[in-house]
Every structure is written in structure tokens, then in C-alpha cells.
């Protein structure tokens, strides 16, 4: 039940942020679908492996892969699709709890949530970095091979 609610709300969160970033037209809808699917991927991998770092990294890698391919198909900047789709993964909750435990002098909980915040941010960054470099190199080689064939 909780998972379903999260998947549905992540659709609206991604699509809403696409509108905030001034994306127009049907793209907004697809960005919402992408956001929801990537969150579903996160929940699935998290369920199977139980490893939050791994699952966030996989989910952000999926977002990057999808937006790199789709952006070349419909000829828009990659960042237009990628940034709003990544929004549900942004660790706003961890940021808040870290801050609130710090203020309330609960050191053990503060350390725990700071660790979780850094882990989440690191996982997303790692997913983006690895996939972006793989995808850009792949497309560079792909276009070179394609232009040689002609």
C-alpha cells in the first residue's frame, strides 16, 4: 500500500517539477511516468537486495540511461528529461532529519542520519556519473561507426 502511494505521488512530483522548470507539452507526462517508474525500480531493488546505496544507484542509473536515449530520439537537451525525473530521489528527508537531530542534541541519531544523507547523495551521484560517461562514450562510438558505414 505504502509503495503504491509512493509510486503514484512520485509521478506527480516529477511532472510537477517539470512544470516548475518550464517544460511544456506532452513531455511533462512522460517525465512523470519516468519518475514513477524509476521510483518503482528503486523500491523493487531495495526489496530484493535490502541495500539502499545499491538501489538508489541503480534507479538513478536507469533514469540517466532512459533520458540519454529518449533525448536523442525527440531531440531535446538531456538535462530537460533527467533533472525532473531524478527529483523523487533527492534526499530531502535525510537532510531535514540530520538538521533536526543536530539541533536537538541527539548525537547518535545525528550521526546515523548524516551517514544516511551522505550515502544517498553519494549513490545518486555515482549512478549519474557512471551512466553518463558510459552513455556518452557509447553514443560517440555509435555515431562514428554509423557515419563510416555511409
Amino acid at each position, binding site marked *: 500500500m505504502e509503495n503504491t*502511494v509512493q509510486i503514484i505521488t512520485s509521478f506527480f512530483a516529477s511532472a510537477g517539477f517539470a512544470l516548475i522548470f*518550464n517544460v511544456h507539452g506532452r513531455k511533462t507526462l512522460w517525465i512523470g511516468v519516468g519518475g514513477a517508474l524509476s521510483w518503482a525500480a528503486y523500491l523493487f531493488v531495495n526489496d530484493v537486495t535490502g541495500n539502499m546505496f545499491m538501489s538508489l544507484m541503480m534507479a538513478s542509473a536507469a533514469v540517466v540511461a532512459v533520458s540519454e536515449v529518449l533525448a536523442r530520439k525527440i531531440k531535446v*537537451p538531456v538535462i530537460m528529461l533527467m533533472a525532473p525525473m531524478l527529483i523523487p530521489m533527492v534526499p530531502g528527508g535525510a537532510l531535514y532529519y540530520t538538521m533536526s537531530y543536530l*539541533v536537538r542534541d541527539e548525537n547518535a541519531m545525528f550521526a546515523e542520519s548524516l551517514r544516511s544523507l551522505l550515502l544517498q547523495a553519494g549513490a545518486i551521484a555515482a549512478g549519474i556519473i557512471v551512466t553518463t560517461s558510459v552513455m556518452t562514450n557509447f553514443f560517440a562510438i555509435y555515431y562514428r561507426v554509423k557515419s563510416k558505414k555511409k
Partner: protein
Amino acid sequence: MDDLLISLDRQNKLMQVMACILDIGATLLANGAEVMRVEDSVSRMCHAYGFKRADVFTVTSSIFLSATYADDNILSQNRRVAARGTDLEKVARANELSRRICACPLPLEELKEAVRGLDDAPVYSERFRFLLYGGIAAVFTVFFGGTLADSLAAGLTALVLFVAQKLGSRLRINSILLNTVCSGIAALTVLLLCRFGPGQNPDKIIIGNIMLLIPGLALTTSLRDMINGDTLSGLMGFCEAIIKALAIAIGSALVLYGLGA
């Protein structure tokens, strides 16, 4: 002397073309595109207009362009981008224009017209964005496990947040201070709504509003900059985003600490 005059006129024209190209580059940079896309577009457009060499260097807020024309004229211009925002529609349009120019360079007057046209990109109305803020905060509160009452409170808080942001940017408050103040105001509103209004879990409601403030696009862009080898711009953007996130945390921390909640 005559010869010199003709070349001056020509030089003037070339400078105007470069200014237009820089305008397109600045539009990309100011609205959230990566450094690599800016540099690549500017140098491609220069080549399309017959420059045989174009050296572009872009950092977070400036573009430096030095270009050699086919007749060995060397010209250079800088462009400083004052404010950076996020308008991906403008990025897409500038990108499309640059593709069009590379395929077939426009005459100078048409080029100027097209560059001016970039500012007419459609934007959503203020009222729509106001309601959107409320909607997104409400959705995020449910996402993070809040109840329906919480999501109502989050929506109301986000409307206050929107007004605070608008007022702050009209007063030209520095953006880091603005983030601190806005998250403080949001936290205060949430606490008030929890005491006298529908709110039940202040933490979930505040998180829903924090999500609106976190510089998600800046973080993504700076990561992509670093991967593309533009480490300097990437690091600067990354630092800026981290400082903003800290400012947001400090803003709500001050309120929570001050009220002992």
C-alpha cells in the same frame, strides 16, 4: 584608407554576428544548460558563419570567445551572465536555434530577430505556478509518509513559501540568505499550522516544503559538468548547491531551535 573603411564595416558585421552567437550561448548558460553544451554550440555556430577557428571558454557565469575569420581577422568578445535560473523551455529553444543555424546560417537581420525571439518562450502564469507550488508540497508530504491533513497543511505552507520567495527576489535579497529566510518562514508556518490548524506531523510537512527549495537542477548540471571534464564549473556549481542546501537546513534549524520544538 578606403580599403580600411570597408574592412572596418565588415569587422563590425562580424562582431554583430558574434554578439548574436554569444546571446544564444548566454541563454543556454543562464537557464540551466551544461558548460559543454554552451561551448559546443557557440563554436559550431562560429564555424557555420565562416570562422575558421573559434576558442570558447565558459565558466559558471561568463563566456569568452575569440574567433579567427577566414580572412585571418581575429576578433574577441566576452559575455557575463548575471543571473542564473531554470527555464528548460528556453534551453530547448536556444538549442534548436543553434542546430538550425549550423544547418543553414541565417542572414544577420534574421539572426537578430531569431535571438530576440528566444525571450518570447512561453512561461506558465504566475497563478498556475503559485498553485503548482502548493500541489507539489502536498504530494511530497504524502510521498514521505504524511497524512492527508498533513498534505493540506503542506500545500498551504507552500503558498506562503511562494509569496515569500517572490517578495524576497523583488527586494533582491542575496539568494543564499533568501533560501535561509524562506525555509525559516516555511518552518514557522508549519509549526503554527500544527498548533492551530490541520497539521499533525510537522517533520513530514517541512520535508515536503524543503523539496521545493533544494537546488536539484543545479546539482545535476554540476555533476554532468564534472563528468564532461569541465571540473572547474562543475565544482563551483556543486559548492553553490551544497551551500544552498546548508542554508535551507540552517533556516529551519533556527526556527525549530528558537521555538524549542
